[in-house]
């Protein structure tokens, strides 16, 4: 019988994953995995509801990325009602969506990636948090982050009703046109966003890239998997978060698939494991070969690094420069190092900010033509966007009255789930030897999945506080030989 290390949060918390680490008789890691409870019952919940309510309802599934669900749902309704929104409506949607991407990426980098990289993975636990980040980069930066997010969230609220539960997208368009004042507000916010993103990239250069230990960590084998990558692209195979076709590149970076998101079921399938509620998406064209990487395994990744890998180029010039710098520094394209996701996220933040500048300056953006009224009978609707955490697909089928008969969501974390499992297993095998696991080492295992920013189960809030973790190490006969409490 093998030993088991269990990191188990005992209270409810958002992202309440458990890491199980099984040791073999020799004391090395036999297998490690992350167990993720997931929200259940979406399909049954959706049945019988009015399809047009879905963008509002699904935005309530997740408190972290409501705008992503709202937008994927809205696009699914366009498809369901066979209606093409006017150009201004598409631009307004994309502009607001890019603002959301900027804001979410900023939150992630400073609050989540920051503790690992700005403060350092081996820094004392007490410093490895947002306070440590502030200590390192300065309080002024902290105020800037909070002020900047407030500005962008204010713009999103003004455009969409609410940040948290947007009432914005409608089948065939948006609920209200941009006023000239709102356009000017977005133009100013966009310029600020570009400056802010460049500033964040400079922090990354100064703090992370200037430290050879960090670069070595990013490129180390423990955090590397040679998988396929997927992302939404424009006609020129450049990044686009709002619309386009899905493109998949192979582990050598060559195009493997390019398809209309409506055909996703032809290319993406889901594998089920008895130990996880979460289904593991894989490429049907390759097949499920287990938790392994390489060209023969259907495991793929989504999210910032995957999008950069899957694109021929970024859609904006400064982001393109930043992406080239990343690829040049990390040994060329594609980059297979999971921890580089943090860097890619900043490149994307700049990309979204520059795209905001372009769209806010578009003469059509304040046009009053923002709605095409649907007239056709609803049938099937599939909508896709790039959520901050990766490709998000909404799929609705309805009766003639537009009542949902079937609904399916594939969220980013599902698309990434197999690669996340690979990451946890590989990091644990490389780092853990025997039951004497210290907290710093566990943090390095956690870093393997934290880079993806997995949104566990879209169950998105937590009691503020009291979220202890417990590590249980069990001996060959199942007896508890060691317990590490991580309740601060």
């Amino acid at each position, binding site marked *: 019988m093998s030993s088991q290390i269990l990191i188990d949060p005992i209270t409810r918390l958002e*992202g309440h994953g458990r890491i199980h680490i099984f040791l073999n008789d020799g004391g090395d890691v036999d297998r490690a995995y992350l167990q993720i409870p997931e929200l*259940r019952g979406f399909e049954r919940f959706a049945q019988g509801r009015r399809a047009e309510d879905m963008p509002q309802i699904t935005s309530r599934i997740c408190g972290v990325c409501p705008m992503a669900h709202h937008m994927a749902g809205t696009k699914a309704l366009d498809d369901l009602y066979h209606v093409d929104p006017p150009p201004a409506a598409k631009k307004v949607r994309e502009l607001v969506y890019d603002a959301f991407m900027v804001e979410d990426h900023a939150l992630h980098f400073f609050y989540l990636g920051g503790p690992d990289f700005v403060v350092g993975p081996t820094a004392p636990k007490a410093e490895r948090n947002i306070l440590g980040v502030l200590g390192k980069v300065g309080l002024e930066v902290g105020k800037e982050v909070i002020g900047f997010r407030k500005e962008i969230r204010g713009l999103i609220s003004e455009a969409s009703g609410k940040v*948290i539960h947007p009432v914005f997208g409608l089948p065939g368009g948006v609920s209200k046109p941009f006023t000239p004042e709102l356009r000017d507000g977005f133009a100013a916010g966009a310029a600020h966003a570009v400056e802010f993103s460049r500033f964040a990239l400079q922090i990354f250069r100064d703090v992370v890239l200037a430290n050879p230990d960090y670069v070595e960590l990013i490129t180390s084998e423990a955090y590397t998997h040679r998988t396929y990558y997927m992302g939404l692209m424009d006609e020129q195979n450049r990044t686009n978060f709002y619309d386009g076709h899905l493109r998949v590149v192979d582990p050598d970076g060559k195009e493997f698939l390019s398809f209309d998101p409506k055909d996703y079921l032809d290319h993406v399938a889901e594998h089920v494991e008895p130990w996880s509620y979460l289904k593991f998406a894989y490429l049907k064209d390759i097949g499920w070969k287990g938790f392994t990487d390489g060209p023969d395994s259907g495991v793929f990744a989504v999210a910032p690094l995957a999008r950069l890998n899957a694109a021929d180029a970024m859609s904006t010039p400064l982001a393109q420069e930043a992406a080239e710098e990343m690829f040049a520094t990390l040994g060329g394209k594609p980059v297979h190092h999971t921890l580089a996701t943090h860097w890619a996220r900043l490149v994307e933040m700049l990309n979204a900010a520059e795209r905001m500048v372009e769209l806010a300056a578009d003469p059509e953006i304040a046009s009053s033509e923002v709605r095409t009224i649907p007239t056709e009978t609803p049938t099937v609707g599939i909508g896709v966007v790039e959520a901050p955490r990766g490709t998000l697909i909404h799929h609705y089928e309805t009766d003639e009255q537009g009542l949902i008969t079937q609904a399916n969501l594939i969220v980013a974390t599902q698309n990434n789930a197999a690669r996340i499992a690979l990451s946890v297993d590989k990091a644990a095998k490389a780092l853990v030897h025997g039951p004497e696991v210290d907290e710093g080492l566990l943090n390095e295992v956690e870093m393997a999945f*934290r880079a993806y920013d997995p949104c566990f189960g879209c*169950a998105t809030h937590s009691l503020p506080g*009291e979220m202890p973790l417990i590590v249980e190490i069990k001996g060959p006969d199942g007896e508890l030989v060691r317990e590490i409490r991580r309740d601060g």
Partner: protein
Amino acid sequence: MMEGRPCCLVLGLGNELAGDDAVGLLVAREVRHITDADVEVVESSASGLALIEIFAGYERAIVVDSILTGHDPPGTIREMGMDEVGRVVAPSVHQAGLPELAAVAERLGLTFPTCTRVFAVEVVDPFTLGAPLSAPVAAAIPELTHRVRDLLVCWALQEEPCTTTMR
């Protein structure tokens, strides 16, 4: 206190679609009917450091949320002060405890509640979309609402010294 701005925040946390997880939001809605202009009632699905923007600017705050410990019967209400809410060491960005939020706010010079009470309700199933509230959790809503209201009244009358729950 800022001019013309409520000094107390009542924050209901949860996901209204996910069964028992809605309890914090439902209590906030009840409380909204019985409070005056000096109290702001907010419902939110956000978490962690994103909450800092909600707390900022208030002197006092009451938080209502669900909790799943498995140690108490469903519907059990735990009331905690800031000092009893543990520090968070958790594996995702979205996680940060009240003490950490308060510390960040202090470092950044933001106004943050100096007095915070948390009501946490033990739940049965916060993971099933479209599920109804479980009976014991639904039954806890009136008592929760009363306790929140009573605390607000105490604060308004200054009967409860804030020092007992100060960070």
